């Protein structure tokens, strides 16, 4: 997708819409290592929000906080006004039915074929007659362009195709929130283009809120309404892709322009170079 055919709505600030997902002052640590130190993030209903950051900043952890798979040590995580950490199992599951998530590697169930994979949530949660179920599944597969692959097994799909099937599965229950965990990772340019188009068009067509976690700056710039850049467990920059590109902070600059060295150092901490070479025998 070139900037020529980027929809006009990208980057536009939506009028005073409510925030579907809000994280306020979230602290979370794993084994005494802090992952989030007072994180504040909010996502507007109907928008595509991107979460970016260097590897290991806990982007996936953030998603798990939103889906309620983990609980924050402090702070609030609100989804549609409900505090996720406080929900009982049944309520949590009810909330999850309103969300759809696309995993990095698709996470298709390997013992079911494509059709059954997409049908899975329907079979588990609804008692739709078989004919209706078939129509829904085929419709969703058509939306991602894979209606013809319905009989294939996950092992027979390429990475891009698997991800598209996973997307079809994520939208089969018509969720209100769609979460994408590194949707562009490892894809060839064509597949990337396909996924980008799908994210954007699904967002428009279904009126949902999309949250995209990625570090592909160029792709994000083309589809996100708002982006958050995380570093060291906090938000270091937020705003439209344009605003981030013009951001003065050095770490934002390093990330957005892909510079090898900067606030995130090139060299892993090591003793003095000269001393180690000439001193001999110390360290690795």
């Amino acid at each position: 997708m070139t900037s020529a055919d980027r929809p006009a709505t990208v980057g536009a600030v939506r009028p005073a819409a409510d925030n579907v997902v809000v994280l306020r002052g979230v602290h979370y640590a794993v084994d005494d290592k802090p992952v989030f130190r007072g994180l504040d993030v909010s996502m507007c209903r109907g928008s595509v929000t991107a979460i970016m950051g260097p590897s290991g900043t806990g982007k996936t952890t953030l998603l798990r906080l939103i889906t309620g798979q983990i609980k924050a040590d402090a702070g609030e995580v609100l989804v549609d006004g409900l505090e996720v950490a406080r929900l009982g199992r049944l309520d949590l599951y009810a909330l999850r039915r309103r969300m759809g998530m696309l995993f990095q590697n698709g996470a298709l169930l390997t013992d079911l074929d494509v059709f059954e994979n997409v049908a899975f949530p329907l079979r588990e949660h609804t008692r739709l007659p078989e004919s209706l179920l078939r129509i829904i599944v085929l419709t969703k597969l058509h939306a991602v362009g894979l209606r013809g692959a319905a009989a294939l097994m996950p092992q027979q799909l390429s990475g891009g195709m698997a991800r598209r099937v996973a997307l079809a599965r994520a939208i089969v229950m018509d969720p209100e929130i769609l979460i994408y965990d590194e949707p562009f990772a490892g894809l060839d340019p064509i597949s990337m283009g396909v996924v980008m188009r799908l994210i954007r068009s699904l967002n428009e067509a279904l009126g949902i809120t999309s949250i995209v976690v990625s570090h592909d700056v160029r792709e994000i710039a083309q589809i996100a309404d708002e982006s958050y850049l995380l570093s060291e467990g906090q938000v270091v920059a937020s705003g439209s892709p344009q605003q981030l590109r013009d951001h003065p902070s050095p770490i934002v600059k390093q990330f957005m322009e892909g510079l090898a060295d900067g606030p995130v150092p090139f060299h892993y901490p090591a003793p003095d170079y000269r001393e180690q070479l000439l001193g001999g025998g110390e360290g690795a």
Partner: protein
Amino acid sequence: MRAVAGEFLQSFLSFLERIGRLARFSFQLLALTPGGLLRGRLLIEQVYNAGALSLVIIMTCGLFVGMVLGLQGHELLQRFGSVEMLGSGAALTLLKELGPVVTALLFAGRAGTALASEIGLMRATDQLSAMEIMAVDPMRRVVLPRFLGGAIAMPLLTAVFVVVGIYGVQLIGVQFFGIDQGQFWSQMRGSVELRDVREGLVKGVAFGVACSLIAVYEGYHADPTAEGVGRATTRTVVISAVVTLLLDYILTALMI
């Protein structure tokens, strides 16, 4: 000295933690069992997975074990001049000990590892996580049917093993060594009681529950990496073997 004591305490505590986790897991499964028995489709698939697919190895090994029993038994009994006891002795051995224990060990090796690696792989490829997000409880959908499938399949496999084993004994004793067929069976009938069959089946059920539980637990708690899954399958076999033999002693002591 203090450091050693401290380390010892730590490993003891983590051992306790493990046991606690296993207990909690088991209770969870037990609580879900009544509901699990209703999901016919899933259950059937897992009984097939654990049972029907293990039939070949169970029957083959059963036959060989029976034949060895026949050979060894015949040789030993000849020294005491009571060769006619071959049928009874072998049948009782198979029924009460060899059948349940060997079946359990074979089951752990074939079905146990399959269960553990299936679940472990699902964990490593985020399939379990995906299910959670789709508001489907992986315990109910994936773990429970496999556990029940294994627990149901085991006693049945044990029975098949014993029957095939007895056939093997018969093959050697009657066909090969020429023990009178009528005597062989009548002696057996005379010494085997219903409670012996009951003992064997109770052991089969107990071992089935234990080995399936271990396999399913290891798979579910495997490290989500390739090595993690590998480790989980190894641990399944090892722990299943130890627990089976321990249970064997306990049950034998209780039932004798």
